[in-house]
């Protein structure tokens, strides 16, 4: 195989893996949108908050230490060496469930039967609140997150692919980050687990029922409030997974919450109501971005990656507004 073709494959694979990361964020959006019709602008910040909490627990940070130090003129930062990773992840999950519960109790419950735009505005407020709250709680410095996943390039894969090119070619083999491979495996497991749960358990059935028809769900005895806590908890869990993957890849910092914006074109592509759509949409955006950067980028001076996804989304809005897998929008006249 020629090095040019191998390069193409390498870009393609890396695009797929970047796409998985987008899918993870988009998945959280779809879950909440399906069950409650709310477009949760705060999904990205939830991922950031989860990652911050995880790092904080892992490293034994005292929450609100800056605030405490400022008020009481103390100088505390850490309460100890920190928790083992597994325990820290479990505790973070508890925090995310508590967050879902508080949200339902103090925000959503007061906005039942309101227009979608009002709920959307509420999630924007939530995003800003959570961002500031996360900063206040854990500090705004960039943190490194290490949950013990392998990272760095895979030498084995490099050797294997080097052998595919002609002996005398100027080619060094493909680069694939081991972290991306872990992310892919984790994403596949997560999506499989979620779909099994929703297909084969009573709670999963209740979730699907609520997503389908609120009134009918109420009449068979499903408590919407309970379901919303569950859905937001699951979205919190997905945010945690996304936060871990993105945090491990590029550090836990504010820009993490901006990846949520990349989920938007993913959702427009895949459809707001479709879980497979979120995944395929993420993959298409990931691959499209990387290929465009590599092949069209040099012609226009690069940095295509930043806007390419939005252009694709725009094209989709023109020709297929419901996305690839979304429900057809049929208005009754």
């Amino acid at each position: 195989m020629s090095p040019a073709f191998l390069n193409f494959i390498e870009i393609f694979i890396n695009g797929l893996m970047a796409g998985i990361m987008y899918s993870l964020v988009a998945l959280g959006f779809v879950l909440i949108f399906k069950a409650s019709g709310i477009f949760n602008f705060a999904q990205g910040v939830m991922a950031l908050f989860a990652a911050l909490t995880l790092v904080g627990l892992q490293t034994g940070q005292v929450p609100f230490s800056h605030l405490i130090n400022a008020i009481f003129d103390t100088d505390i930062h850490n309460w100890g060496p920190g928790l083992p990773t597994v325990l820290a992840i479990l505790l973070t999950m508890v925090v995310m469930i508590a967050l879902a519960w508080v949200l339902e109790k103090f925000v959503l419950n007061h906005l039942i039967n309101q227009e979608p735009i009002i709920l959307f505005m509420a999630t924007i407020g939530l995003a800003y609140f959570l961002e500031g709250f996360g900063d206040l709680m854990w500090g705004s410095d960039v943190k490194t997150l290490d949950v013990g996943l392998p990272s760095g390039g895979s030498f084995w894969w490099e050797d294997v692919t080097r052998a595919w090119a002609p002996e005398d070619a100027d080619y060094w083999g493909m680069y694939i980050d081991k972290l991306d491979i872990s992310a892919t495996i984790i994403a596949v497991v997560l999506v499989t687990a979620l779909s099994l749960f929703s297909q084969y358990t009573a709670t999963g059935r209740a979730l699907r029922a609520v997503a389908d028809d609120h009134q009918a769900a109420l009449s068979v005895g499903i408590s919407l409030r309970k379901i919303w806590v569950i859905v937001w908890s699951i979205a919190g869990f997905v945010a945690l997974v996304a936060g871990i993957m993105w945090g491990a890849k590029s550090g836990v910092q504010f820009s993490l919450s901006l990846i949520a914006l990349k989920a938007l074109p993913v959702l427009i592509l895949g459809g707001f109501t479709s879980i497979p759509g979120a995944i395929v949409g993420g993959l298409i955006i990931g691959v499209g971005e990387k290929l465009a950067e590599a092949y069209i980028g040099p012609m226009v001076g690069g940095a295509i990656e930043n806007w390419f996804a939005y252009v694709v989304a725009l094209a989709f809005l023109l020709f297929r507004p419901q996305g690839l897998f979304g429900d057809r929008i049929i208005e009754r006249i």
Partner: protein
Amino acid sequence: MNVHVHPTQEFRFMRPDDGIEQGDPLLVVDNISLSFGGVKAITDISFDILKGEIRAIIGPNGAGKTSMLNVINGFYHPQKGTITFRGQKRSRMRPHEAANHGIARTFQNIALFHGMSVLDNIMTGRITLMKRNMLWQALWRGPAETEEIENREIVERIIDFLEIEHIRKTPVGRLPYGLQKRVELGRSLAAEPSLLLLDEPMAGMNLEEKEDMSRYILDVNQQFGTTIALIEHDMGVVMDLSDRVVVLDYGQKIGDGTPDAVRNNQDVIDAYLGVSHD
């Protein structure tokens, strides 16, 4: 998988009814008034539903029949009056609580989960009876598995009863209207309700489908002893099925009694023939 089902074992849906005897009031509606802004939907309506009977609620369009059902199962909260169900008085109740207390219903415009299969739709009817927590379900082991299988067994028998085996796995949205109505009845039966509210169960059906539905309703009432309140426009059906009829017009009760008594009530005749109200 320790579920033992004997073919001879009699299949009963009915829940124990907290000491309500056959023929005693199961539900008492007392002086209910409901308005939306300035529009009065229901004014001072009182009636009761006796355990074991089929009670019809009839009246011209806009008489407040569906509003009445919505009040009974908690979708609407009346401004005035009380509802006593199984001896417990209440003025407000959320719909999912009503379902938990044994009130199941169907809707005029069919409120099924269109993307889900017939089987899954009917399984949702049993949600109030499935108590295993989510963690067990997530593990899909032990108690949750047993529970799922037991409930599935009962749902399969409801499917048999309604003769819809052939469409068990079909997404409900693809079914013709008459079958959807039947599935909706199945879902409400799955809750083993003490009181079953049917909102126009035969609307839009042809004669044959109406006959089938009538038979199911009678069977449910007689075999399982379920108390039924139904709204229906087809007077022939109402007169044949129901034990007692309450007639509403412009949100007020204008008649209450056996089908024969109601048929001969002058107010009822006027309301249906459109005599002016002055």
